[in-house]
């Protein structure tokens, strides 16, 4: 079974089992890369061909203009993560990879919510935003845009709160993460 050369037919369930990924805790990989063209494609391509899903991915400059930082979150049990970091290390432009421990990491993402709000609802929404330390950044007669920064959990909690009002659109940056303490991430 499972071998493409043999005659036995495969059931859909078997196919699914063969392609399903082990899931474990969320991993935040912080990757320092040389700031060269095509680096992001190499990383994304590696994930695609090795069969790993990227949950979120952010790229941005660092204090050194030769170097960029990619922060990506993936779902996976320890073994495949080990394989992914080893494969990432093989990319010539990848300088350093850290699989950040949640307890030793400050992680943030930014989200923008466009919520339907006429009249009475607007006040209530603004109260909720305040509780989440969000900011109202745009108001029109029919909608407000609220900016929220925080951990993924907080963003998701806020989403749950405003959804009943009529969530028109939501945009999230994906997490960036920095290690706690004096040492560099």
């Amino acid at each position: 079974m499972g071998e493409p050369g043999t005659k036995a037919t495969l059931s859909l369930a078997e196919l699914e089992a063969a392609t399903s990924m082990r899931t474990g805790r969320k991993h935040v990989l912080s990757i320092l890369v040389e700031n060269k063209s095509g680096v992001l494609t190499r990383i994304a391509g590696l994930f695609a061909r090795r069969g790993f899903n990227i949950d979120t991915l952010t790229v941005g400059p660092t204090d050194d203009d030769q170097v960029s930082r990619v922060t990506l979150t993936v779902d996976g049990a320890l073994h495949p993560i080990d394989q992914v970091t080893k494969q990432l290390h093989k990319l010539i432009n990848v300088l350093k990879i850290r699989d950040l421990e949640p307890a030793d990491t400050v992680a943030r993402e930014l989200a923008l919510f466009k919520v339907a709000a006429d009249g009475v609802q607007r006040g209530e929404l603004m109260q909720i935003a305040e509780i989440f330390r969000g900011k109202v950044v745009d108001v029109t007669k029919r909608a407000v845009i609220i900016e929220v920064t925080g951990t993924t959990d907080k963003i998701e909690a806020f989403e749950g709160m405003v959804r009943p009002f009529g969530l028109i659109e939501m945009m999230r940056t994906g997490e960036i993460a920095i290690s706690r303490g004096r040492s560099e991430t």
Partner: protein
Amino acid sequence: MRAVDAVMECLKAEGVDVVFGLPGGANLPTYDAFVGGGIRHILVRHEAGGGHAAEGYAKATGKVGVAFATSGPGATNLITPICDAMMDSVPVVFITGQVRTELLGTDGFQEADTIGITMPVVKHSFMIQSPQEIPRAIHEAFHIARTGRPGPVLVDIPMDLSRAEIDYEPVTDVHLPGYQPRVEGNQKQVRQAAKALAAAQRPVIYAGGGVVNANASEGLIEFATSDRFPVTCTLMGLGAFPAPHDQWLGMLGMHGTRAANYAMDEADLICAIGARFDDRITGKLSEFAPRAKFIHIDVDPAEISKNVPAHIPIVGDAKHVLAKLVIEYRAIGADPARLAAWWTRIEGWREKYPLGYEDSPDAEIKPQFMVQALHEATGGQAIVTSDVGQHQMWAAQYYDFPAPRRWINSGGLGTMGFGLPAAMGAAIGCPDQLVCCIAGDGSVQMNAQELATCAQNNIPIKVFIMNNGYLGMVRQWQELFWDGKYSHVDTGEFPDYVKLAEAYGATGLRFEDKATLVEDMKRAIATDGPVLVDVRVTREENTYPMIPAGQAAREMVG
């Protein structure tokens, strides 16, 4: 000087003595620089032939092979050799022309996104954005291709940049902060491995292409004979340990010997060196070597515990690690007598299940006999290349390779049409050695055009087509696993290989008689220039023994 002249200077500085390539619009400037540039260039008839020739050259010599192609279709024709070099860790630098920068992204004539298309199958690639980058990129490409786990590196040069004037200064350093292969091997881990080996009752050394790549064959022999360790090699590792040898079990894997596969199955400790536990080795992973602990030595950390978890991982190249391991192992002074029972068991398998076949009662040439005849005709001393299929497995089984870099084939990717151009590259790299290709009739035509290259340049390869008029391995699988229903595997008697050879300006011969085959082969080998021989063999013969796909070593048949 012009950037393209700097390219020639870089190649010379890297010690390149030959380039395989084919010119086109986008690399016209480069080809202008070849005239009087001091680099030998072999004009191939198809870029894939050039790519495989560069691989054959690299595998035979241990040096970096080089292939050139133009943009668009020239570059896309290189995809198969690039992927092949990636799978088998072959150091090759590919230099492609690209449309001029102002045309990039506009679907210009003969534009293809070469960097994008090749990205999943290169060790690294360089898209040249300024002509001044060219010398460093080429230098770093060679460094990356040959160090660590070797592999293909591509440099894509837009036509306008290659024509630019630059200040050329020889590059002597590399600046690759993200690339520092570890070759030494951790001393503590090596000591652990030595201890485990000394304690093992049923050890097996499982060596792969990494031993050949690291030029570690001598180290392997020294280590294996520092005790009486049984040794098996993968398809890619053949020759790393000399065959025959009283510690040699034969090749392992799908068409390996029973002695090798059963030894792996019953081993209590497997020492993998430069091998990657491919599915053709392990068969059913959950039942692979169920009693064994694993030492895994590999220069590529990502190979360790990828398929089979290693108990003692050692990141380092085979040469460095084996040198340390021998010292550590000798220091322990293990008792070789502990392996006596294990050898009795192994000898039992060897006696009961030798490689063999039923010979024909008449003049008919059995394919296995053909390989044995070539061994005899060449004194076992030829460099042998092959295509992919039954003939490849028979060549691996029956041509006992006494030294590394004598067996050149496409293992990982399994590229049909690899053998003939690879032989061409090997012959150019090793002009003093006899280079033969055992080709399949299904495979050989995929790059038969390179016979013209061989004829034009008097490259004296001797190609022996094992002609059964079938895509033999596919036919075998249809016979065994698909109820004997043959679907599109009969290639008939086309083409007439003797006429084909003659049309290309090579010598064409046809052998059909077992009784005179060895002498006939000697005659073919003694013929000047390239020779293509149509050897008619038994039409329906199966490659045995065999572990049916996805099964355990215990399930070997035939």
